[in-house]
């Protein structure tokens, strides 16, 4: 059948390929406040449950994460594939695994959101030539707080941070205080994000009270390349001039240890990239590739026959396919032909039926 009983993703293995596992409803708000693809969120609301298919790329990722040695420098994994093949879903699957294993998850839902459509660009107080993005930073901090509630009181700061003449956060205070300050004082939220990332980088994999850090970035190719933001004299802003991007790039480097970086490439939402591009070097560019190198590319392909069967049976089971013709063999062949087994196209097609 298509629904597997195991909701424990630690025990997922090759036998479960193609089957669905249910994410407990309570996890949705904590683990995924921001990060699931919008259509999938609608599906979850409609079906009143969240089922994720167990697929090869995610299983591979999880097996690497299980076996990796966390004393070594961080391993970077890059999910790539054509549009709609399931990269974001695989990323979310891996994030869910990390979260159930007790890791601290740093999930950036779409790095492209930080390099375009920013209404307010403030010059950074910390570094003269950089720019802050208060709205994006405070939104992200809020979601980060929801995801990692239990860590916020446990992690203590190792350094004193001075925000203004009167405000500072002392050494030894819990991380939660820093995050709250960032959410309330929107002006310095970008610097707070930088401080949070730095603290986590230093403390991940530490021996006393150590935790594992998973950095999940969707659309990582947005960090290199061009932005659509302009300074006041209409000259374009380079990505490294944005505080958020600068700090995130430091996280993606492998000069820290005790965690993993899982990233996906995304053409939808990317700027100045042709719509047929999906291979890593095309989307990352020279600079991006050199920064990510060495990384482990994980290809995400379209549904195999078995996976397609499973998805089709799942939709039938949920009575999502109402049209009588879609329930016949002929109809199934038509669906295969029309969607070419592309997961997102299939989902959109079935929405009409």
């Amino acid at each position, binding site marked *: 059948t298509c629904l597997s009983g195991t909701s424990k993703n630690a025990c997922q293995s090759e036998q479960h390929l193609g089957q669905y596992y249910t994410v407990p409803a309570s996890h949705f708000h904590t683990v995924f406040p921001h990060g699931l693809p919008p259509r999938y969120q609608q599906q979850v609301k409609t079906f009143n449950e969240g089922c994720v298919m167990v697929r090869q790329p995610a299983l591979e990722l999880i097996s690497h994460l299980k076996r*990796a040695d966390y004393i*070594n420098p961080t391993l970077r994994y890059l999910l790539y594939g054509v549009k709609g093949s399931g990269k974001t879903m695989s990323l979310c699957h891996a994030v869910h695994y990390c979260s159930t294993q007790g890791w601290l998850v740093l999930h950036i839902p779409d790095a492209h959101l930080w390099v375009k459509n920013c209404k307010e660009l403030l010059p950074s107080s910390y570094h003269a030539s950089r720019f802050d993005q208060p709205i994006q930073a405070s939104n992200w901090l809020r979601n980060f707080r929801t995801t990692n509630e239990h860590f916020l009181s446990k992690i203590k700061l190792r350094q004193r941070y001075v925000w203004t003449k009167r405000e500072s956060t002392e050494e030894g205070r819990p991380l939660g205080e820093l995050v709250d300050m960032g959410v309330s004082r929107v002006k310095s939220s970008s610097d707070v994000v930088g401080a949070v990332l730095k603290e986590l980088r230093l403390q991940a994999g530490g021996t006393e009270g150590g935790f594992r850090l998973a950095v999940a970035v969707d659309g990582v190719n947005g960090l290199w390349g061009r932005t659509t933001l302009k300074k006041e004299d209409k000259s374009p802003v380079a990505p490294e001039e944005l505080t958020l991007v600068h700090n995130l790039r430091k996280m993606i480097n492998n*000069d820290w240890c005790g965690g993993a970086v899982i990233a996906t490439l995304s053409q939808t939402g990317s700027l100045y990239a042709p719509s047929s591009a999906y*291979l*890593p070097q095309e989307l990352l560019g020279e600079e991006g590739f*050199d920064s990510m*190198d*060495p*990384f482990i*590319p994980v290809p995400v392909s379209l549904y195999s026959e078995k996976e397609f069967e499973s998805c089709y049976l799942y939709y039938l089971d949920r009575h999502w396919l109402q049209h009588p013709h879609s329930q016949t063999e002929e109809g199934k062949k038509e669906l295969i032909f029309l969607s070419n087994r592309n997961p997102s196209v299939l989902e959109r097609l079935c929405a009409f039926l």
Partner: protein
Amino acid sequence: MAAHTLKKSIWSIGRIHCHVYGVNVRNPLNRATYATALSTNHSSQNKGFPDRGNRGPFNRRSRREAGDPRTDRMPVDQDWTTVYPTATPFRQGSVPLPVRMGFPVKKGVPPEKKGNLELIKIPNFLHLTPLAIKKHCEALKPFCTEWPSALDTGAKCDEHFPIKVESKDYVSAGTSLRNPSARIVHLRVSLSACVNYDYAMYLLTVLYHESWKMEAWESEKTVADMEEYSWEDSPSQKNIMSTLVRMQVAGEGEGEAVREELLGRPEVQEYRDSVTRLKNEGESESSMHQYRDAVKKLLNL
């Protein structure tokens, strides 16, 4: 009362006539039509319109109905070259295809061909079907001369005409006539066909020695100028070296010895090959797989 009815009768006569001539004109020339008490019963035909003979205000009499479009009467095996013998603008009544062109109407499809200016504006090649071109060739044949029968093999052509010049022309729709790739012209000469062997050797020797001379500005060549990707001293090499050192793979020891040892390892060589292949040849699924395997081996996964 009488005047009133007279006015009504005049109007009604005018309207009846309008109906007869198939045109619904109310007050076409914007002339105030008066109703006078006297009955102005001059020729009832052109009420209110000056006499223009049979041309009428809008030539409504001699205009004939537009008939069916020609497409309705086209057999499937017709001779298309008669429909479009020369380059003419698109005629929607002559093209039996349900073509649509243009920006879609809101919540709809591109507009149909009837009355579509977009289809008329663009150049069309309806007059150049393969059959038409065959006919053109047939017509041009009497004016052509025969290929010389002595040049029937490629070898003979090369012997008599050793220098070949190849130039390319590009056709595209765009803002500019010019295409930079059209400026590349290939000139091919076979060395064995050269009659003046000594001079040719002399030229080649000179070129060879010239190419070895280093100009002052050549030392300013940057990484971006390089034709090929070389792995030495690239960011990729630096990254992998620092990663491996930190992984303490090489054991103790510092500096050059460690580096040399690491570089000599087969996994590092494999990695170097895969990165060079990716950068030089461009990406493909197979080169990505090779890179993946190399990285996995290197990082002991």
